[in-house]
Each structure stands twice: as structure tokens, then as C-alpha cells.
């Protein structure tokens, strides 16, 4: 029972889907951001796996940059949340619908 | 001066419009009149310098615009366009000179001058894109005129006018681009020059079956695409419904220009584009279009009869007359096409005058409903007389301008179909019905309405506008030759071109050969790298 690349890819996909579930069902913005982290992480698994099976380092590079991006996003995202929280004292996305139509 | 007279004709009014911004409000009408007069004089000068024996283009100008894409600023005038240009200049002059005081008169006059630029441009452009440019641009001033100075439903009317024609012309634009593509395929060079396109023969018949009604008949598709744009402008039945609103809501000057010039763009384009570019398709669609034209003639005349608003009567009568023009155009012979061009002039003069006349009474009474009038002949005999003359010109009485055009158009089409011409000929009956009954309702009978008892007759300003029109309407009815000769000269070359280009036997048979040599002025086109 060898673990092939496909195993990792399927796992990555499942995790990605879990991330999508989180993204879609979370109403608390902080929790929503957590879900986006899952998305990126799941892809990382696949990258590293491919890298491993192809014997190529590029995938790891990609994963590395994805981590960097995830970290930056957290910074900016939290910054935005703080500003919003200061004004409205909540971070519920249902309150954000002053613009519509 | 002669080398660039066409450009001067086009851009002088616009330039004057810009300078008009600096003119004080009170003097604006005088300024506008002066500018329009100069423009009119220039157009007369053009007529004077025009060589009526030449059938091709004259005073050609060419300037590269987007040479890489084959778009060039090409102008030229021939017998087909000359008189419409003169008419446009004439009517702008008359229109501005007879303008009654309204709000924002400065804006109105500047808009009119811009409108004039676009109108003249449409008729002089010999490059499809430049043509399209002016064609579309003409919508804007008209939109503003209707929308800002119109009646209570003006916004609806103006937006409808704009969007309807805009939609149609976008379809036409695709057709134009297609045509250019075919030209590119055939020659390897992009060109939008109409005269270049004239030399392009598109096959109509299916190579295997010899059938012309097949999906691969590009002439047919292109014809339809162009026709869509033109038909809405003309307006052909059933695309005519914007017109009554536009006329009904537009201020007098707007209706006058709309009826006299703007509608002619459509029929002019039929002759300039459709016929020479797609002779086989023209023959294919001759009868369907003729039937539409006949429906247009009879149906709209009946609708006109049912109207309660005198301006709507004139508006619908315009549609009806445009039907005759279209019919004459699709006669595809010299008599018919010359007649339709002449009728364009005639209808321009007559319907323009009728709208001016309706404007006169609207100025006085703020109503256009016929039930509010009756017996006006008692108090306004001069008005009644001029209205009567114009009405008779409108119903096509011989020795008035419209008769010449109608006669020739019908005569031309008679050679294609006898039965249809008889139906189309009912124009002279149904036309008389609505016109006479409208005239009767307005002018005859006892003067019952108290408000009408003290209406002043035409004043000097109005007479100044109307009398020239009466003179023209009768003069050209009696002596149409100065116009008819150059027109038919140019039309002959168009017909001959169509005959030469026709690929199907049916088309060769339907389009007569003039048996005279024609020269299409060739334009140089830059190579695409």
C-alpha cells in the first residue's frame, strides 16, 4: 500500500474543501480568516508532495512563498478587523451590508 | 478654398458654435443666424461650383486618420449628396432665423450648430467610419434638443430616440467592420473607403447549388446588418415608433431638423451604401422591402388620420412619405432612385415647413390638439394659405415639389412591379385623406373657441421663414431640372455600377444597364504592415 502522489492530492483537496466550508459558513470575520488559512495550507501539502515525488524543489519554493503570503495576509486582515472593531465593536460580517444593489 | 470647401462646410458651424460661447445671450440669435447664413451661402457656393455634368465625386479631400486600420478622412460630394447638404444648410438657417424666444437660447443655438456639423458630415463623408462617426454624433445634439426643450414627456422621447437609433447603428457598425474585413480578405489592405468598397464584388450565389437564399450569402447578411441601422433611422415600419414621440415632444426647431434632414440620413445611406455595395441582395430584398414600404405608406397614413394632435399628423405623414422614398430607392433604376432623392429634398422642404407651421400655432396657443382649433382661416388667413399650400405640396399635387419625387419614385418602381405600385400609389389617396381632414379640423368651420378669436396672423419673422419655403416648394415643382439633372447623372453611375457588380441573372435583369461608362474615383490606401 504505497502512498502515491494522488493520495496527497486527494487529501489536499479534502482539506481545501473543508476550508471552503469554513469560508462559506463563518460569519465571524476572525473565524473566516482562519478558514482561509486552511485553504492555503492544504495547497501547501500538495505542493510539497509533488515536489517530493518529482524530486523537484520548485514546489517547496511555492509552499514557502505561500506561507509568507499567508502571514502577510494575517497582518493586513487583522489590521482591518481592528479598525472595524474600533468603530463598530463587532466583527460580524452580517453587519457589513451598507452597500448593496 | 475649393480644395477644402467640404471640410469648411463641415467644421465651420462647429467652430462657430465654440466661438458662440463668447457671445452675449441677447445677441445669440443674430449670431446664430449669421453663422447659419454664411454656411448656407457656402453651400450655395458649393452648388455653384459643382459641375453637374460629372457623375462621380467632386471636391474630394483625403487625410489619413488611422491609416494602419484603413480609416481615412475622405470627403466628396456628388449629385446625390449635394442637394441634401444645401437643404441642411438652408433649414438650419431658416430654423435659427425663425427661432422664437425660449429659455437657454444660447445653448440651443450652439447645439444646433453642432448638429449642423454632424448632418453635413454624414452626407459628405466617403469613409464608412467617418460616416458612422457623424451618424452617431448627430444623435447627441438632437437628444439634447428634444430632451431639454421638449414637451412634458421629453425625456422619454429623447432617450427612446437615442437608444433606438443607437442600437440600430451598432448593428450597422458590425456590418461595416465585416465589410472592411471582406475587403481586407480580398485585397490584403484594410480600407473603410466607400469608393474602395464599391469595387468589391461579393458573391451571392451558392457555388454548388446556385441558390441565393443560403446561409453563406454574405451579401445578404451584410445587407441586413446595414439595413437594420438605416431602417431605424428612416424609420421603416415597424421600427418607426420612436418618431412620433420624438416629433411630438421635440420643440419646433427640433422637429423641423429631424424631419427635414435627420431622417434623410437613412434613405441617403440606403443609396450610398446598400444599393451599390450589395446589388444582388438589394434585388433579393427588393420585394420584402417594397412590401414593408407599402405597409408603411398605407398604415401610417391611416394612423395619421386617427391622430388628435396636429403635430402627430405631420409626424406620421413623414413616415408615410418616407415609405415612398424607400420604394423609389428600391426601384433600382434611374427614375426611381432619382425620384427618391428628389423626394428627400421635397419631403424635407415640405415637412420642415409643416412643422414650422405647427410651431407657429403652438407658440400662440400652447396646444397642438386639433379639437382646440377650428375656423382658424377666419383669423389667420395668411397662415391658412401657407398651410394650405404646404398641405397640398405634402399630398403631392403636381407643380409642387413632392409630386416630382413621388411621380418618379412610383414610375420607377412600376417597372419592377405593377401591382405593388398600385398599392403604393394609394399614398396619394390616403395622404389626401388625413391631410385634408386635419386641415378641415383646424381651419374650417366656425370659430368656436374663445381663445382663438384674437390670434394674430403670421408675423414678419415667421413669414421670413415660411415664404422662402413656399417659393422653393413651388419653384422646384415647376422647374426641378437644376436638381434633377445632377441627381440623375450621379444616379446613373450608381445604377450602372450595380448592374456591373451584380452576379446573379435576376439582378442583372432587374437593374438596367445605362450603357455609359462610369468612373469610380479611386482612392489610395495605405498598406497595412
Amino acid at each position: 500500500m504505497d502512498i502515491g502522489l494522488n493520495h496527497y492530492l486527494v487529501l489536499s483537496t479534502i482539506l481545501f474543501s473543508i476550508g471552503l466550508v469554513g469560508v462559506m459558513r463563518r460569519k465571524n470575520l476572525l473565524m473566516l480568516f482562519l478558514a482561509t488559512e486552511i485553504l492555503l495550507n492544504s495547497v501547501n501539502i500538495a505542493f510539497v508532495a509533488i515536489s517530493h515525488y518529482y524530486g523537484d524543489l520548485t514546489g517547496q519554493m511555492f509552499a514557502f512563498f505561500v506561507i509568507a503570503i499567508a502571514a502577510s495576509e494575517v497582518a493586513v486582515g487583522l489590521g482591518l478587523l481592528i479598525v472595524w472593531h474600533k468603530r463598530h465593536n463587532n466583527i460580524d460580517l452580517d453587519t457589513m451590508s451598507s452597500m448593496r444593489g | 478654398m475649393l480644395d477644402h470647401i467640404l471640410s469648411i462646410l463641415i467644421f465651420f458651424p462647429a467652430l462657430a458654435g465654440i466661438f458662440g460661447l463668447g457671445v452675449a445671450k441677447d445677441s445669440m440669435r443674430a449670431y446664430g443666424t449669421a453663422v447659419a447664413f454664411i454656411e448656407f451661402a457656402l453651400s450655395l457656393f458649393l452648388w455653384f461650383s459643382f459641375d453637374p455634368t460629372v457623375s462621380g465625386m467632386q471636391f474630394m479631400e483625403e487625410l489619413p486618420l488611422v491609416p494602419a486600420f484603413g480609416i481615412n478622412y475622405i470627403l466628396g460630394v456628388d449629385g446625390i449628396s449635394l442637394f441634401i447638404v444645401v437643404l441642411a444648410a438652408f433649414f438650419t438657417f431658416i430654423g435659427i432665423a425663425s427661432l422664437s424666444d425660449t429659455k437657454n437660447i444660447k445653448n440651443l443655438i450652439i447645439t444646433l450648430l453642432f448638429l449642423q456639423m454632424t448632418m453635413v458630415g454624414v452626407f459628405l463623408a466617403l469613409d464608412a467610419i467617418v460616416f458612422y462617426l457623424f451618424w452617431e454624433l448627430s444623435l447627441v445634439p438632437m437628444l439634447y434638443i428634444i430632451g431639454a426643450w421638449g414637451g412634458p414627456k421629453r425625456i422619454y422621447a429623447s432617450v427612446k430616440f437615442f437608444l433606438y437609433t443607437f442600437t440600430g447603428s451598432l448593428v450597422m457598425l458590425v456590418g461595416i467592420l465585416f465589410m472592411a474585413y471582406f475587403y481586407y480578405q480580398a485585397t490584403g489592405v484594410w480600407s473603410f473607403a466607400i469608393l474602395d468598397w464599391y469595387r468589391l464584388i461579393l458573391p451571392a450565389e451558392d457555388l454548388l447549388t446556385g441558390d441565393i437564399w443560403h446561409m453563406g450569402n454574405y451579401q445578404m447578411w451584410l445587407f441586413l446588418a446595414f439595413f437594420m441601422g438605416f431602417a431605424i433611422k428612416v424609420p421603416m415600419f415597424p421600427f418607426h415608433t420612436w418618431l412620433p414621440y420624438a416629433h411630438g415632444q421635440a420643440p419646433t426647431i427640433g422637429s423641423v431638423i429631424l424631419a427635414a434632414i435627420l431622417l434623410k440620413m437613412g434613405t441617403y445611406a440606403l443609396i450610398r451604401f446598400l444599393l451599390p455595395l450589395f446589388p444582388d441582395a438589394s434585388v433579393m430584398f427588393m420585394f420584402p422591402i417594397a412590401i414593408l414600404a407599402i405597409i408603411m405608406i398605407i398604415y401610417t397614413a391611416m394612423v395619421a388620420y386617427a391622430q388628435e394632435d396636429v403635430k402627430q399628423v405631420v409626424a406620421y405623414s413623414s413616415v408615410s412619405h418616407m415609405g415612398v422614398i424607400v420604394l423609389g430607392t428600391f426601384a433600382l433604376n434611374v427614375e426611381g432612385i432619382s425620384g427618391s432623392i428628389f423626394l428627400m429634398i421635397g419631403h424635407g422642404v415640405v415637412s420642415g415647413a409643416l412643422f414650422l407651421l405647427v410651431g407657429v400655432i403652438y407658440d400662440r396657443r400652447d396646444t397642438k390638439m386639433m379639437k382646440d382649433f377650428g375656423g382658424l382661416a377666419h383669423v389667420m388667413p395668411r397662415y391658412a394659405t401657407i398651410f394650405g399650400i404646404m398641405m397640398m405640396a405634402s399630398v403631392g399635387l403636381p407643380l409642387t415639389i413632392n409630386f416630382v419625387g413621388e411621380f418618379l419614385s412610383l414610375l420607377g418602381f412600376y417597372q419592377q412591379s405593377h401591382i405593388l405600385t398600385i398599392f403604393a400609389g394609394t399614398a396619394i389617396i390616403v395622404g389626401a385623406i388625413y391631410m385634408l381632414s386635419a386641415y378641415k379640423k383646424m381651419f374650417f368651420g366656425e370659430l368656436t373657441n374663445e381663445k382663438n378669436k384674437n390670434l394674430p396672423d403670421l408675423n414678419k419673422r415667421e413669414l421670413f421663414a415660411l415664404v422662402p419655403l413656399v417659393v422653393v416648394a413651388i419653384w422646384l415643382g415647376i422647374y426641378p431640372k437644376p436638381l434633377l439633372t445632377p441627381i440623375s447623372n450621379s444616379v446613373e453611375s450608381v445604377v450602372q455600377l450595380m448592374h456591373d457588380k451584380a452576379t446573379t441573372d435576376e439582378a442583372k435583369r432587374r437593374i438596367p444597364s445605362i450603357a455609359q461608362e462610369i468612373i469610380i474615383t479611386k482612392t489610395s490606401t495605405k498598406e497595412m504592415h
Partner: protein
Amino acid sequence: MFEAIAFYLFAFLTIIMFYIAVTTSQALYALTALAAGMIFISAFFFILGADFLGAVQIVVYSGAVMALYAFGMMFFDTTRDLKEKKGNKYIVAGLSTLAAILVVIIFSAPIVGDNIKALYPVVEGAGNTQEIGLVLFTKYLVPFEVAAVMLLVAMIAGIVLAGKKMDASLTLMSEEEIQELEKEKNKEVLS
């Protein structure tokens, strides 16, 4: 065999953790589950021989990102139960399941990896970190620098947005109010 067991174990754990992270109504649980999931993921990295990334994963995610989130959580006071109005669950479940199934269908077919040539082959005998370093500072130097810029941007953004600068909105103030504000500021500086 060991690899298989490890894969399935960690796969199971990761899925469970992430599932908890996206479904629980306790913010703290969610955060903890996420952190755990991250660490389990780093396990995959180690399995796959990407030691450097594994380490980075633990350091950056469990160390930095999670700390930030924890801080945020405290700031926003979301430690108590999350009250989330739920939308249509079926849409959420349906869409994500569908997405998963669709991709899985495709992925269940083996990839034809015939003519794949590794651009930067894993060199035998060198440590993963060294290899990474080599590639990162040659081929991926530019992205690395850009990432640096990105982090700088993120930093400035964080400072600007979360700091005091956004407290008083000049956008909403009229000119007079702004001038008054400036005067006060100057006073503060002077005093």
C-alpha cells in the same frame, strides 16, 4: 509501510482538526484545532523530506500566525460563544462537497508524469535546507525580495490601520475641524 500509516494517521488528524476549526462554535477550540492542524501538516512536510518547510511551518504558523490570531481573539473578545446566524447549510455543504467530489474525480486518475524534468532536482546528499537556500537565493531571489516588500507593506498596513492614525477620520471632518485638530496637536508638541 511506516509512511502509509503515518500518512493516514496524520491525514485523519488534520481533517478532524480542520473540521473542528471550521465548525466549532467556540473560538478558542477553533484556534487550537487550527494550530494543531498546522502542526500535523508540518508532519507531512517532514515525511516528504521537506525539513526546512516543516520547520518554517511550525515557526510561522504555530508561532507567528497563531499568536496573532490569539491576540486578535482576545482583542475582539471572541472567546465566548460565537453567535453566528447560519445561512442555508445545504448550500454550503452542497457546494463544498461538490467541489471536493469533482476534483477528487479528476485526481483519482493517475497523473501522466512522463516527460517531467525536474528543474531544480533534489540533490542527493545535501540537506534540504541547503538546497532550498541555493534555489531561493538564485532562481527565486526576486520573488524573495518581492515577498520582503510584501511583508513590509503588510507591516506598514498593520501599523497604519491598527494604530492611532486612523482614529480621527479627516475624511469625515470639515476643514474647520481639521484645523482645530491640528492646533491641538501643535499644542501637544509644544507643551
